[in-house]
């Protein structure tokens, strides 16, 4: 299984009936493909849509029905549209149950850096700071390492996105949860040992007993 698919399938297991969910761009977007068949969740696009559906068939796109990346999407039955003030009221006001975002670094206290690399990449934070600060639960979907260098560090060296720690990071190697300022190794991916995860991680991981394997 490809790394992104492992991550997306595992995060999809965190969804439950009726949740309002905001997915970021990249691996997070893939989560929508793996929603369990027996539940209904509402996906929000922060440009002003709840009920975001898959991209339309070729030739069926509408220029004013897009996701937060400007790409054509569909609106599912029961969808609603609203202005940006309400969209961020939903986010900052704690009405969004879960947001799944990409990450550049996560540190052992759960702080996330995902919006800039000084001197290199300054795209702007868009909605990221509001999402991390306001959503009820924040899960980061990212590869464990970048060019062989761990992305799960002791202390973020890149500028953080929020003072609010995230709840969980899911990589192609592991599920790591953050509780009371500590990083706990909760699950490993199939075929990956806890020792391998620890070796690929700079942050101090709390490992207790036999670590369960992701049920994908």
């Amino acid at each position: 299984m490809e790394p992104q698919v492992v991550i997306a399938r595992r995060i999809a297991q965190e969804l439950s009936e009726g949740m309002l969910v905001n997915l970021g761009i990249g691996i997070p977007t893939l989560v929508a493909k793996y929603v369990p068949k027996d539940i209904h969740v509402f996906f929000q696009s922060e440009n002003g849509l709840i009920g975001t559906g898959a991209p339309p068939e070729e030739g069926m796109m509408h220029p004013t029905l897009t996701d937060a990346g400007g790409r054509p999407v569909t609106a599912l039955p029961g969808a609603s549209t609203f202005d940006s003030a309400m969209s961020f009221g939903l986010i900052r006001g704690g009405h969004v149950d879960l947001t799944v975002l990409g990450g550049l670094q996560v540190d052992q206290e759960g702080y996330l850096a995902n919006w800039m690399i000084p001197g290199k990449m300054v795209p702007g934070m868009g909605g990221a700071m509001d999402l991390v600060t306001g959503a009820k639960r924040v899960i980061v979907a990212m590869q464990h390492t970048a060019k062989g260098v761990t992305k799960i560090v002791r202390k973020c060296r890149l500028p953080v996105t929020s003072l609010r720690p995230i709840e969980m990071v899911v990589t192609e190697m592991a599920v790591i949860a953050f509780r009371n300022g500590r990083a706990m190794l909760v699950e490993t991916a199939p075929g990956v040992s806890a020792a391998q995860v620890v070796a690929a991680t700079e942050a101090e991981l709390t490992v207790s007993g036999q670590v369960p394997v992701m049920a994908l």
Partner: protein
Amino acid sequence: MQTVSVEQSVAMIPDGATLMIGGFMAVGTPERVIDEIVRQKKRDLTLIANDTAVPGRGVGKIIGAKLARKIIVSHIGLNPETQRQMMAGELEVELTPQGTLVECIRAGGYGLGGILTPTGLGTTVEDRKQKVEVNGKSYLLEAALRANFALVQAFLADYLGNLSYALTARNFNPVMAMAGDTVIVSADNIVPVGVISPDHVVTPAPIVDYLISNS
């Protein structure tokens, strides 16, 4: 409300003006007003918008023509020309979290001096900003935003200037319509009064100063 041509609407904008421009990645952006701003070469503009879209679309056209002096936006990541001008020191870029940006615009239009938000605390956004504690929680004080002109794209405008919007083209438009000293509207469709039922009017007619006529 007065009906004007797109040329007349842009002729009202002086060099150095502050403009709010609706749209999100150029969806819901009044493209023909932007085309006319570029044609009339309005200079030294300050733009307040969600993003600078991509080169050749929406706000990206104004950036490409180097007509902006300063922009207040949440995202420039899909427009390399904006990043180039920023790095070269040709364009002042103030990056603001999207929720803070829209809420500061809303505050400006609703007669408030600013907002208190937890977003940006502990990040580079809080530099030089006042922190305020309310009921034991910390917030950043972010000042309200207003503009000389709000450039709005609506889906329907009736003959009086009542507006409604379509799908994700709504975004910043109705919020900005409240925060511009002069509000210029371009609409996909101009319709008789009554076509938009009172419950479906999002921006009420008295807010609109100028509606651009069909050419």
